[in-house]
């Protein structure tokens, strides 16, 4: 049986189910208990699990991130709530130098089964320091897994899999999607880390969209269908590990690819995926792989300007149309 719930409810359910199942799972962060986070994702958890397991911290990200890494090393399974993805800069040492490397540097004697839940996404009028999509930063670091749910269904299944993973996993939710509803099974399910999903089958161009860019790609595919162009939509679901097989298989079929992601385009996730396609499916490509990331500027506060910085369905469709019709997107 499925019912429609919001992404916010899906995350709440995932955490509650895992906390009931495993008493070593704890929740740590700012405003996670009394306030239930600014996005109200965690409402009700402190009532069920108490303040021993749902722990409000001071506004000191490096501090609580360090506490969580230590707790993970010594037997707990902390879920750290980082209120905005932009605050990743504050926890870089605890996350990238400690959590990511401890298993390796202890010769496998220590695990860090930790989940860092945070968010990404612009167009919420939150200005340059609360609108960034910084998943490429952590995807770059060996030892960290990175999940990018694109719906309530994925958010629940990936978060539960992340909590049960024995290694640090960073999970990015799009802060504009918390109220988006999707069908989610009543029964328990996990979505394995490292399996992409083909959300729409097509023949002429593969649109690869992460997180909310999956919806952008799906809308673009609808626009293209009206033009008689058949687009396939692939959601990688996790960046690390990346399901290359599904992505390359799709591109080998369609011969064309556009990678859409909300991180900055320069040196970003789109570049990595596009490079792997170019490297490994080169002889199947009938057009250059196109990257579509966020504009390489600080996210503007002005709504009119902010909306220009992220890929839109129309822009994705325009590029796809050009590729399929053999019109060069960039100068020859």
């Amino acid at each position, binding site marked *: 049986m499925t019912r429609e719930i919001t992404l916010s409810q899906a995350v709440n359910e995932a955490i509650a189910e895992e906390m009931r199942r495993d008493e070593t799972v704890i929740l740590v962060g700012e405003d996670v208990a009394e306030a239930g986070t600014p996005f109200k994702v965690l409402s009700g958890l402190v009532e069920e699990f108490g303040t021993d397991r749902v722990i409000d911290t001071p506004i000191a990200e490096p501090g609580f991130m360090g506490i969580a890494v230590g707790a993970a090393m010594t037997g707990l399974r902390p879920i750290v709530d980082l209120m905005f993805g932009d605050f990743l800069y504050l926890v870089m040492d605890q996350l990238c130098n400690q959590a990511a490397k401890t298993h390796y540097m202890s010769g496998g004697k220590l695990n860090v089964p930790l989940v860092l839940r945070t968010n990404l996404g612009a167009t919420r009028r939150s200005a340059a320091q609360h609108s960034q999509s910084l998943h490429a930063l952590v995807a770059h670091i060996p030892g960290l897994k990175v999940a990018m749910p694109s719906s309530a269904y994925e958010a629940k299944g990936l978060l539960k899999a992340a909590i049960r993973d024995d290694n640090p996993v960073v999970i990015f939710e799009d802060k504009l999607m918390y109220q988006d509803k999707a069908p989610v099974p009543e029964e328990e399910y996990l979505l394995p880390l490292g399996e992409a999903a083909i959300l729409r089958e097509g023949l002429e161009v593969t649109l690869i969209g992460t997180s909310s860019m999956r919806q952008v790609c799906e809308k673009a595919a609808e626009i293209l269908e009206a033009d008689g162009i058949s687009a396939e939509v692939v959601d990688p679901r996790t960046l690390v590990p990346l399901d290359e097989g599904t992505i390359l298989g799709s591109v080998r079929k369609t*011969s064309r690819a556009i990678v859409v992601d909300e991180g900055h385009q320069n040196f970003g996730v789109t570049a990595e995926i596009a490079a792997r396609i170019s490297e490994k499916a*080169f*002889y*199947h*490509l*009938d*057009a250059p792989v196109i990257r579509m990331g966020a504009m390489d500027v600080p996210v503007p506060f002005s709504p009119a300007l902010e909306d220009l910085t992220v890929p839109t369905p129309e822009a994705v469709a325009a590029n796809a149309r050009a590729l399929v019709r*053999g019109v*060069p997107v960039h100068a*020859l």
Partner: protein
Amino acid sequence: MPCEVRMPQLGMVQDSGVITAWLKRNGDPVKAGEPIFEVETDKATMEVEAATDGYLSGVKAAEGDDVPVGDLIAMIVEAEGDVEEASTGASVTEPEDVAVVEAALRSEPKPEMRPTSAPLERAMSKSVAFGRVLASPKARRLATKRGIDLHQLRAQGVAEPIHVADLDAAFAVGRNSLLSAVVDPTAFDEILDRSRTANRTRLLASFAAGAWRATFDVSSVSVTIEDLDGQREVVINPDRGGAGVAEDPVLTLVDLCGTRINGYVPMDGGVTLCVARSAAGYGLLLAFPESRLALPGAAALVEEIAVRIENPLLQLL
């Protein structure tokens, strides 16, 4: 003293070069060190310079020609009066001269594909700008596989970059060339008679794959087996026990033995091999669009298949 102009060796493993542009015409005066034509190898495009002063004479290769290393391309003669006519009739680069450029194409110009001068102009101006034909990786791979010369498509006015659709569009779908052969049936019949397990169609598929591999020196060969009921099955490397990775099938095999039909040419533009049995022996009919398979390759392929049917042991080589 007249000086020979030969195709230079520009790379270690290069055995031919494509002349992408003539920078001088037959009869033009040239100075030592002056570039006279551009040549493209698999790696780079380079200008070839005159070795001496004189007049360009007796030009033998046209733009687009792939000339073996060391072959004579032209002479540089001392006196203007010694200039011989160009033997290609095409040492001309003027884009408007459509007829002359067409004459330089290696295959027969096809009237319905006669380009208008506008796209040709664009293609020719690009040829000067880039030297190499711009094509997508997949188009380049398929062109190689099908024996299509991308320079020829450029000369026909196909806009660059060339995509897979251009390969198909440049040659009207459904226009096939045909080759047929009749092969002595004795040895093959004997194998079929004596073996309780031999499957004729499968054996023919493996002969076709082996012949293709031998003719075109490729590592993976898939064959589609089709019958007149429209049933289709793709077999991967039938000559190697089916091992390997699926690729686009190179040809379709239609086994007509046991029917009175002796040939079937589909309109889909693919390479199709029909095998029929008549009183005279095994009849082979290869239908192939020359866009995908050039005549010399097709003829060699039919020969290879024929000798395998005549002497199946050859398949083991």
